[in-house]
């Protein structure tokens, strides 16, 4: 790929990751959330895969995408557990208010969804790109 694309892709990668985290935390009261944040982040890695190579993108991801899916799913499962103790029903969320920000187990759930979407999309995208690259 061209030098311009390769260089700019690193800048865009960081920008897109920051945007994805912004999207993730924006989802509480405005459009956004874990799913679209995960798509942004997955796009960032897919951009890296296009610009350099899938191996470089895999190295940037550090873990295998399936491991990311598993960790995200486990986070989502953990976020549902506190409800069992307070209300007897899964996924009843606990909320805490620090000043004007609402934090709660739903945020952990959303982060879990974020990781699952990144892992899921990248598992497919990397496999696809590797198949095309040959």
């Amino acid at each position, binding site marked *: 790929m061209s030098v311009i694309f390769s260089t700019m892709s690193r800048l865009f990668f960081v920008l897109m990751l920051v945007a994805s985290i912004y999207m993730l935390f924006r989802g509480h009261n405005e459009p956004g959330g874990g*799913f679209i944040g995960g798509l942004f982040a997955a796009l960032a890695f897919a951009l890296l895969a296009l610009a350099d190579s899938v191996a470089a993108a895999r190295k940037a991801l550090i873990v295998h995408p399936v491991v990311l899916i598993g960790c995200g799913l486990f986070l989502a499962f953990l976020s549902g557990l506190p409800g069992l103790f307070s209300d007897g029903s899964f996924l009843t969320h606990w909320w805490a208010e620090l000043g004007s920000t609402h934090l709660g187990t739903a945020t952990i759930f959303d982060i879990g969804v974020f990781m699952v979407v990144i892992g*899921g*999309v990248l598992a*497919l995208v990397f*496999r*696809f790109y590797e198949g095309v690259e040959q």
Partner: protein
Amino acid sequence: MEPVLAIFVGLLFTTAIYLMTSRHTIRILMGVAVLGNGVNLLIFTSGRLTRDVPPIIPAGLDAPLIPIANPLPQALILTAIVISFSFFAFLLVLGFRAYQELATDDSRDMRLAEPADDPLPPLGY
């Protein structure tokens, strides 16, 4: 307004079924995508179309004071979009893999699982 959208949903279904009854895998894929969109629009229409504000309760109140848009179809459509997106991604990779492995896009030529020249059943014992 709803009859117009209903007719449009019908058009989407027609296109989707026409594409899905095609021989080529990629057209079947397109048909699945259009069908998913048609069904999403159907759920949207069946929640009735209104000119109302987004379903957000103002701060400090327990219930909205004015009529709000129906949030339930929006939640259903969001779920359906997420699910059909992941399906479409998987089917795309599967179709591409099938094209690579089976060297054809034509589903009539994909006779590996059910070979066309299966031998005759046992005629006697």
